[in-house]
C-alpha cells in the first residue's frame, strides 16, 4: 500500500516507537516567539539543560510588539519585559533572534517561508497554533504548547500519538471574486470547528494546485480552525520556484538535489486516508463569518441561519447576541467601523498588492478606520519599493509596522467594545480583537472593498473591479 505525503514525512522523522504506539518525532525546525517561550527557557534553566540544537531554532518578536515606532522602547512595561526576555534568552542559549528593528523581523509564519527556512519534507513546530501555515510547502508543521516547546529545546524531539489522515479535495474552477481565504472559510463552514480534530489534513485537487504559495499558506494557516493538527499541500513547481534563491534555501547543486527529493514526497496514488471530503469549486462563493467561531460562515449574499436550522442552539443564540445580529438576516449593507488587513493568514505581499489595486485613487469611507499591518519587515519594505504603501496611505489606510497586531489584540491595536471589524485574520472568537469587539472574517478583496464602502458589500457587483475578480 502506498503512503501519503504526511506518512512519508512523519515516518522519516521517527526516532523511536514506544510502548502503546507513542512515537518520538524528530523536529527539523523550531520557531519561537516572545509569548510562549519564556517559561520553556526557564524550564531548561531550572534543570540546568542546554538548548540541544540552537542552530535549528529561530526566534522573532511578533505577538506582543507595537506596530508604531518600533525603533523606540516599547511603552507597555509587560510587553517590553517579554520582548526583552526573548532577546536575553536567545543570547544566553545561542539562538538566532530577529528582534524588533532587524530586517528579518515579522510574524513567525510569514518570515519562515520568506527566508527559505521552511522547506518541503521538514517537520516544523512552534508554540503557536497557526504553525500549520508552513504546511503549504509540504511540511508536517503544527502548533505546540509551552511544555512541548521546552521538550524540543531540550531534545529536538516530541512524544506524540500519530494523527489520523484526512484528505480534502476541491476540484473544478472557482468563480469570480473567490480567493483562497474563501475556499478555506467554505471548508471550515462545512466541517465545523471540531471537524478536523485528531487528523492531519492534505489539501488536494485543482484549486490548490492552481494557487500561489501565498494562497496555499492562507489555506493551511486555517487548518487549526477546524481542529486539525495541521494541513499540508504537496510541493510542486510553484513551491520550488518560490523557494529558489531565498536566503536560507539550498542553492546550486544542493538545490537540484533537494528538488529531486521533494519530488518524491507527494502522496502515492494508492495511499489510503482515514477520512475524505470532496467539494466542487463551483459551489464556493465569497465568504463572510457572522458568529463567534470560524465555522460560522456564510456566502456574502447568504443569510444567517434560522434557529431551527442549527444544532447547537444555545451557542448560536449566545453568538448572535454577542455580535448584535438576528437569525435569518443578510449581512449586506451592514455598517462597519474598522477594517483590519493583516495576520499570518493574509498579510503577505500578494495580499497588499491586491488591496492596493482596489483602493488606488479612491478613499476609504469616513466611518471606517482602516489599518494595514504587513506580515514582516520584508513585506513592508517590498510594499514601499513597489509604491504600494503610498497608494494605501493616500486611500486613508494606516500603514503600520510588522506584527500580529489586532488579530489577537495583545498589543494596543484593539477594536473597541461593541464595534464591528471586518478582518482578514483567522479568528472571530468573542473578545479576540479586544474585549467586546465584533469580528467578521473575510478575504483581503472583500476587506478592501468594504473599507471603501463603509458597509458590507458583495465585491462582484462593482463593474470597475472586473479585472481583479
Amino acid at each position, binding site marked *: 500500500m502506498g503512503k501519503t505525503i504526511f506518512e512519508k514525512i512523519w515516518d522519516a522523522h521517527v526516532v523511536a516507537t514506544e510502548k502503546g504506539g507513542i512515537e518520538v518525532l524528530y523536529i527539523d525546525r523550531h520557531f519561537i516567539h516572545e509569548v510562549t517561550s519564556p517559561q520553556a527557557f526557564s524550564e531548561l534553566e531550572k534543570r540546568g539543560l542546554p538548548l540541544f540544537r540552537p542552530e535549528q531554532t529561530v526566534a522573532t518578536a511578533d505577538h506582543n510588539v507595537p506596530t508604531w515606532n518600533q525603533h523606540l522602547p516599547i511603552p507597555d512595561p509587560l510587553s517590553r519585559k517579554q520582548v526583552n526576555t526573548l532577546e536575553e534568552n536567545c543570547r544566553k542559549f545561542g539562538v538566532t533572534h530577529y528582534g524588533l528593528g532587524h530586517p528579518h523581523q515579522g510574524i513567525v509564519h510569514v518570515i519562515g517561508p520568506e527566508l527559505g527556512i521552511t522547506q518541503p519534507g521538514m517537520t516544523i513546530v512552534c508554540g503557536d497554533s497557526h504553525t500549520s501555515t508552513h504546511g503549504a510547502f509540504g511540511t508536517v508543521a503544527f502548533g505546540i504548547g509551552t511544555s512541548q516547546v521546552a521538550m524540543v529545546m*531540550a531534545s529536538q524531539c516530541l512524544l506524540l500519538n500519530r494523527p489520523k489522515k484526512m484528505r480534502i479535495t476541491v476540484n473544478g474552477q472557482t468563480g469570480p471574486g473567490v480567493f483562497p481565504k474563501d475556499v478555506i472559510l467554505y471548508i471550515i463552514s462545512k466541517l465545523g470547528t471540531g471537524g478536523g480534530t485528531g487528523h492531519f489534513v492534505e489539501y488536494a485537487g485543482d484549486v490548490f494546485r492552481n494557487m500561489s504559495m501565498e494562497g496555499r499558506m492562507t489555506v493551511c494557516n486555517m487548518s487549526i480552525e477546524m481542529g486539525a493538527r495541521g494541513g499540508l499541500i504537496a510541493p510542486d513547481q510553484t513551491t520550488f520556484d518560490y523557494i529558489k534563491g531565498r536566503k536560507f534555501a539550498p542553492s546550486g547543486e544542493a538545490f537540484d538535489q533537494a528538488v529531486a527529493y521533494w519530488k518524491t514526497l507527494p502522496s502515492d496514488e494508492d495511499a489510503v486516508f482515514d477520512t475524505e471530503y470532496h467539494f466542487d469549486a463551483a459551489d464556493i462563493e465569497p465568504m463572510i463569518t457572522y458568529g463567534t467561531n470560524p465555522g460560522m460562515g456564510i456566502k456574502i449574499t447568504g443569510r444567517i441561519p434560522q434557529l431551527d436550522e442549527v444544532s447547537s442552539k444555545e451557542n448560536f443564540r449566545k453568538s448572535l447576541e454577542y455580535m448584535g445580529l438576528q437569525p435569518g438576516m443578510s449581512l449586506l449593507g451592514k455598517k462597519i467601523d474598522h477594517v483590519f488587513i493583516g495576520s499570518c493568514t493574509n498579510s503577505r505581499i500578494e495580499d497588499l498588492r491586491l488591496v492596493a489595486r482596489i483602493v488606488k485613487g479612491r478613499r476609504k469611507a469616513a466611518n471606517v478606520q482602516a489599518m494595514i499591518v504587513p506580515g514582516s519587515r520584508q513585506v513592508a519594505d517590498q510594499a514601499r519599493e513597489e509604491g504600494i504603501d503610498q497608494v494605501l496611505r493616500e486611500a486613508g489606510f494606516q500603514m503600520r509596522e510588522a506584527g500580529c497586531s489586532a488579530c489577537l489584540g495583545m498589543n494596543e491595536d484593539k477594536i473597541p467594545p461593541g464595534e464591528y471589524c471586518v478582518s482578514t485574520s483567522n479568528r472571530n472568537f468573542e473578545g479576540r480583537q479586544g*474585549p467586546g469587539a465584533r469580528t467578521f472574517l473575510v478575504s483581503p478583496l472583500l476587506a478592501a472593498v468594504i473599507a471603501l464602502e463603509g458597509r458590507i458589500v458583495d465585491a462582484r457587483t462593482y463593474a470597475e473591479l472586473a479585472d481583479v475578480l
Partner: protein
Amino acid sequence: MEKFTTLQSTAVPLPIENVDTDQIIPARFLKATSREGFGENLFCDWRYDSNGQARPDFVLNNPLYSGKILIAGRNFGSGSSREHAAWAIYDYGFRVVVSSFFADIFKGNALNTGLLPIEISESFLQQLLSAVHANPKTLFRVDLENQELAVPDRGLSETFEIHPYKKMCLLNGYDDIDYLISLKDRILAFEEQKPA
C-alpha cells in the same frame, strides 16, 4: 508535575460548547514570563464586566458551585495553542476538566500541566450536568488507575480512555523532558543517519 491518583470533589458546571482558549484566558493576559497567577484571569471576560465587577450570572461567581472539577460542553479548548489556558484552569484550583470532546492541543497541554482531561460520552456528560444542577453538593469521584469517573450517590459511572504513557506520567508526576533526555543516544544516532 504533581502526581494525580484519585480525586473526590464537587464540580462546577459550564455547559457551553466550543469554549475556545481566548475565552479561557484572553491574549492580553499572556504577557507574563512565569507560569503562575493565571487563575486570577481565568474566563476573565465572562467573569467580570468592563468595570471589573463580577458578573453574577457566570458560574465561577455563583457561590453555590465550587470544587476541583470543571464540567464543560463539547469541543472544549479549541483555538490557540496557548498552554496558559491549562495553567489558568489549574492555577484557579481545578485538577480535572470533563467534556464530551476536547481540542487536540488543549488536551496535550492539560496533560503536560498535570490537569486531567476526561473525555466522556455526550449522554454521560448530560447526566453529570443534571446531577450538579440538581444538587451542587454532588460529589464526583475520579479514579485514574481504573480510568473511571463516578457519581457514587447516583450510582452513575463511566470509564474513560487515556494513553498508558500519559497515565503513567500523571500517576507518578513524571514529565516528557526527563524521558526524552534519557533517549539522547538514540536521538544522536538518528541525526547521524538522517540525510541533510
